């Protein structure tokens, strides 16, 4: 099967990008040494061992989680909305997650900023993930309700931007009463960052993303049926309400948990599903879901490698790199309008 072959190639690409990503940085580490550290857990250079294990590997794993999670989340949204322009950040879902996070901070009476979630303990991070997912789900439901009344795909994008702005305004009220240094931290959060998700936080993020991906894969038959529209799906025995709930749950968990830990990461969710469809030439979700997850991982590892600005000490925020790469893809899709309705 060509599908399996492509998945195999993508797996190899993920491995290659992982080694590349770990090797790049203020201290360059040769690929052979990285493989040895990853497989044997040994290295001649103790500093290298420390850098890989404590800093770069967690960051690369976070990149894989973010890339796969957001891509699959976007893919499900595009099928659910039957709209190729749907994506977690485009429809304001990430803003919803941000609102969820802000709610925790406010109700806790804490003066801490969104950025301080990294300083929270294990139970705190579960709470944040739950609230971020709830925030995502609330916005998603709202957009879904409005989408039922719309005929034009581009208009949905506008509605998403409006709802995102509204949600961000709610956060701004809170910002308005914050200290300057907290604002700076919030601003840092909006740039997005893959670093700093280690130990317990990485475990929490990894388990939530894995669960979300499994839910998505389990929905692949329902998603395929939904490609023909709700009435056909129902006529083929699909319980549309239940299928939709599972898809919403998966999308909210993926977007919510990732946004809570890494800030908004734009355009991955909208662009990767399209690239995957173009690459595989199919709309079959049983292939698209794993392939999008892998391609999303590859792209985020690459974006993060670029963000390191190899050869310099500076590091760009990840959201800037993904936007620079993703926004042109979306513009290209809108311009090619004849093919634009294709999910």
């Amino acid at each position, binding site marked *: 099967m060509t599908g399996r072959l492509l998945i195999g190639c993508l797996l190899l690409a993920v491995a290659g990008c992982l080694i590349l990503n770990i090797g790049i940085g203020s201290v360059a580490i040769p690929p052979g040494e990285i493989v040895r550290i990853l497989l044997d857990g040994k290295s001649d250079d103790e500093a290298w061992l420390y850098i890989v294990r404590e800093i770069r590997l967690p960051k690369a794993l976070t990149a894989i989680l973010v890339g796969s999670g957001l891509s699959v989340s976007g893919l499900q949204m595009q099928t659910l909305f039957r709209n190729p322009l749907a994506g977690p950040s485009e429809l304001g879902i990430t803003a919803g997650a941000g609102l969820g996070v802000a709610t925790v901070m406010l109700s806790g009476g804490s003066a801490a900023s969104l950025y301080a979630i990294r300083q929270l303990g294990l139970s705190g991070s579960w709470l944040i993930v739950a609230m971020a997912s709830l925030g995502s789900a609330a916005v998603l439901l709202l957009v879904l309700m409005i989408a039922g009344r719309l005929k034009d795909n581009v208009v949905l994008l506008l509605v998403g931007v409006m709802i995102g702005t509204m949600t961000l305004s709610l956060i701004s009220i809170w910002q308005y009463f914050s200290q300057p240094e907290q604002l700076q931290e919030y601003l840092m959060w909006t740039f997005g960052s893959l670093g700093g998700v280690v130990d317990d936080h990485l475990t929490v993020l990894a388990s939530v993303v894995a669960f979300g991906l499994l839910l998505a894969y389990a929905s692949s038959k329902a998603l395929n049926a939904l*490609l023909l529209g709700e009435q056909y799906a129902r*006529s083929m025995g699909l319980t549309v309400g239940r299928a939709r709930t599972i898809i919403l749950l998966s999308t909210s968990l993926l977007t919510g948990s990732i946004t809570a830990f890494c800030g908004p990461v734009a355009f991955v969710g909208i662009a990767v599903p399209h690239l995957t469809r173009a690459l595989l030439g199919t*709309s*079959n979700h049983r292939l698209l879901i794993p392939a999008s997850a892998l391609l999303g991982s590859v792209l985020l590892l690459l974006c993060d490698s670029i963000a390191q600005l190899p050869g310099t000490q500076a590091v760009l925020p990840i959201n800037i790199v993904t936007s620079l790469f993703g926004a042109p893809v979306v513009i290209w899709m809108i311009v090619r309008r004849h093919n634009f309705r294709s*999910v």
Partner: protein
Amino acid sequence: MTGIFLQTDALHIGYASRSVSGPLNLSLRKGELVCLLGPNGAGKSTLMRTLSGLQAPLKGSILLEGIPLEALSPLELARKRSLVLTDRTDPGNLTAGEVIALGRTPHTNWLGRLTPVDQQQIQTAIDLTDTGFLLSRRMPELSDGERQKVMLARALAQDTDLILLDEPTAHLDLPNRVAMMQLLHRLARTTGKAILLSTHELDLALQTADRLWLITRDGTLHAGVPEDLVLNGTFETAFARDGLQFDRQTGGFRIRLTEEGPVVSLAGPDSIWLRQALAREGYRIRADGGYLLSVEESGWKTTDGQLFTTIETLLAHLRNQLFQ
């Protein structure tokens, strides 16, 4: 009674605010092609939606092989009846082959993996609809006729004893409409499935349907063999309205135009084309009296002895003679 697949018992259809039709006691046999006809707004779509299980009946029940529709799980129902909808679906970049394979959805496991049995059923559906040459084409690239055949193949792959089609010929041109009706007629015969379709194609339905369900504007449903419904006048009353006349001789509708012009009578063999042209011009055609036209082998002869070989020149002459 054997062979009855679908039966309704004192079924009332409509919406909470408005009852559309009922009580309906209908039955649909296996191997039978039934066409549901009726003027717009009479309730064809409501009946189709209700029988499909997409809309709840107001009262009464629908039985599939004796089992009430509401007692079936969505999956059980999906294995008994399949649908082809009017609305043009936009299945994105799916190929025709993938769409047809989706018909197996109610039969496959949780991941939708196709077994050899599924492949066999898909192949049968492809063979029956002659869609083999379309399989690798993407849905947006197909013509309306091809797309409708693919959607029918998908319904066949679902392997149900009942297929409901809501205006399957609505977006098709005449040759494709005829081909679709011929295909459905053949399918009912060869596969033994019960096929119900709603349509506006009166003449095609008259020729291909084993039975007609005719809804009139007041919501009454008349069921019967097409020819009976024509001969007892039901067909005519269902569609009668000003300016439209059903011709029992030809089984077609004639547009009735104003009849206020001069009286013309015809002698010789009847010619429907001459009648049509005269009616359009506003002449009243009577058995005798008025201006006499004799139909001859070589053309049409007027009372002043002139012979015309085309209707155009004849009409021009009449205009000069009779409308001075």
